[in-house]
């Protein structure tokens, strides 16, 4: 057995090149895909208890989707050439699929939201004056038909779109996982499990985000949080967390057990440089605690009061959002820590504060979807305060 001193990196490998932005990117698209799956549970699979978050999850998905390209643009050496990726997409590259998949998904999601909100849009147009009226008339595409018949047609179209959206969301995030999984030069990334792990943790983060958004929105607008909805979301979240964590652990266990060449660096990596972000944050804090918390919510339902359950679910969701972020970090940054010489580690990576790829930029990116949501909500409320039932949604 060769002994290694782990102190040699290839001369070009001294720094970590893919930065915080590349961590943010799969994190955000994960939330996009996950939130969409929640909306599909309601629209396609008829989980009526999820009706309260039906609109929210769709709009949240769109809000995050709209900023999903920003981290990439900030990272590119030549953002002004970003369009090359759609002008000459190289079909053998996972990254090139981005343009196609993103556009399809964006179209699909926008359409679905438009159909769901069509009646509201027309009402707003009818109610308002001036510029707002013009904008909303344009948004309604000049058709003011809100007859029973047309709404029924809309409803059918929504179901079709939502069903198409499920594979689209899976592809959107599966491709992100594949982008890493297909790099055969990198032992930490190169596993067929990667897209699946990404997908499951995406759904986890999406559901967690919806639980948090829903509860916060209700609090802010002084409405009642519907316990059934949180209960149901928690159950799904529990399921997906367990699957995610199982897959993540399976990957490590099989690497450790097979003890291939890559374990020479991954073993020491997990023991030293990744000990905190991986073992402490991702596994112990991020996975075990929420699984236990959610188990309480799911298994001890009769013993929990509404506020208690909601609080536990809220806390578990927050922790899971951190877990998923840690997972992205450990994949993207962790995968770059060791040099391809398999004989040493690169300089540690600490994100800068200011600067194009710095922490502040990342925070700004992450806050934007919430602002977008607030703006959207102002014009087209996700929760009616009046007693008027919403058009496209009623089954």
């Amino acid at each position, binding site marked *: 057995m060769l002994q290694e001193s782990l102190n040699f990196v290839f001369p070009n490998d001294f720094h970590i090149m893919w930065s915080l932005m590349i961590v943010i990117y799969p994190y955000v698209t994960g939330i996009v895909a996950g939130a969409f799956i929640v909306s599909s549970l309601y629209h396609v699979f008829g989980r009526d208890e999820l009706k309260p978050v039906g609109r929210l999850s769709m709009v949240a998905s769109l809000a995050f989707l709209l900023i999903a390209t920003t981290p990439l643009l900030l990272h590119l050496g030549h953002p002004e050439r970003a369009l090359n990726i*759609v002008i000459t997409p*190289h079909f053998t590259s996972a990254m090139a699929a981005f343009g196609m998949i993103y556009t399809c998904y964006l179209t699909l999601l926008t359409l679905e939201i*438009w159909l769901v909100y069509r009646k509201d849009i027309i009402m707003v147009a009818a109610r308002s004056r001036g510029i707002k009226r013009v904008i909303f008339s344009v948004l*309604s595409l*000049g058709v003011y*038909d809100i007859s029973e018949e*047309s709404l029924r*047609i809309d409803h059918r*179209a929504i179901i079709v779109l939502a069903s198409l959206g499920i594979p689209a969301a899976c592809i959107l995030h599966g491709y992100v996982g594949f982008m890493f999984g297909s790099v055969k030069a990198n032992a930490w990334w190169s596993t067929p499990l990667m897209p699946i792990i990404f997908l499951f943790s995406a759904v986890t983060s999406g559901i967690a985000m919806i639980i948090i958004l829903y509860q916060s929105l209700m609090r802010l607008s002084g409405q009642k949080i519907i316990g059934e909805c949180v209960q149901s979301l928690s159950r799904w979240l529990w399921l997906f967390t367990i699957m995610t964590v199982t897959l993540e652990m399976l990957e490590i266990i099989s690497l450790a057990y097979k003890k291939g060449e890559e374990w020479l660096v991954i073993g020491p990596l997990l023991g030293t440089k990744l000990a905190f972000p991986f073992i402490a944050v991702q596994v112990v804090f991020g996975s075990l605690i929420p699984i236990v918390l959610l188990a309480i919510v799911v298994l001890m339902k009769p013993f929990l009061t509404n506020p208690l359950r909601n609080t536990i679910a809220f806390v578990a969701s927050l922790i899971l959002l951190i877990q998923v972020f840690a997972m992205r970090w450990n994949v993207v940054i962790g995968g770059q820590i060791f040099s391809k010489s398999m004989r040493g580690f690169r300089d540690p990576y600490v994100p800068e504060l200011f600067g194009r790829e710095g922490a502040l930029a990342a925070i700004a990116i992450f806050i934007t979807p919430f602002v977008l949501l607030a703006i959207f909500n102002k014009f087209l409320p996700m929760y009616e305060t009046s007693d008027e039932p919403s058009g496209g949604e009623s089954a």
Partner: protein
Amino acid sequence: MDHTKHLWRVVLILVLAGAGAIIGRHFLIPKSFGEQGFYRYDSLGDYMTQPVRHGGDAACAACHKDRADAKAGGKHATVSCESCHAPMASHATTEAKTADMPKNRDMTLCLWCHQKLRARPETMPQIEISEHLAALDPEDAKKADVCFNCHDVHNPSMK
């Protein structure tokens, strides 16, 4: 009454957008793209026009025949002029001299090849510098260009 009017408008918009994208893309694809494979063929030309900086020994010999001959007859025959001096481009064009050629007389230059190293093949003449200079006057041994006291670089057996 037809209740699908709004949907048809959506379809129309999508078709228009799609067609716009396809047509727009045409004009954005660079000229020689795809000619030989999935890349811009003219990019080869970009590389070909990069200036050459090292001319090679033959180019040096065109003006410095004496040195070239001296070198060719000795143990440094395989050592390129430019690897000890500097790339040709910093000294002359095909037509004229543009700047003086540096003459590096520092012993680090010699030691790059002749310092004794465990990884160096034994067939390579190598020295342990302190041993090698032991017989010299200590004052001389301190000088950076001490090697030139005894060796002619272009034909480096003892002078």
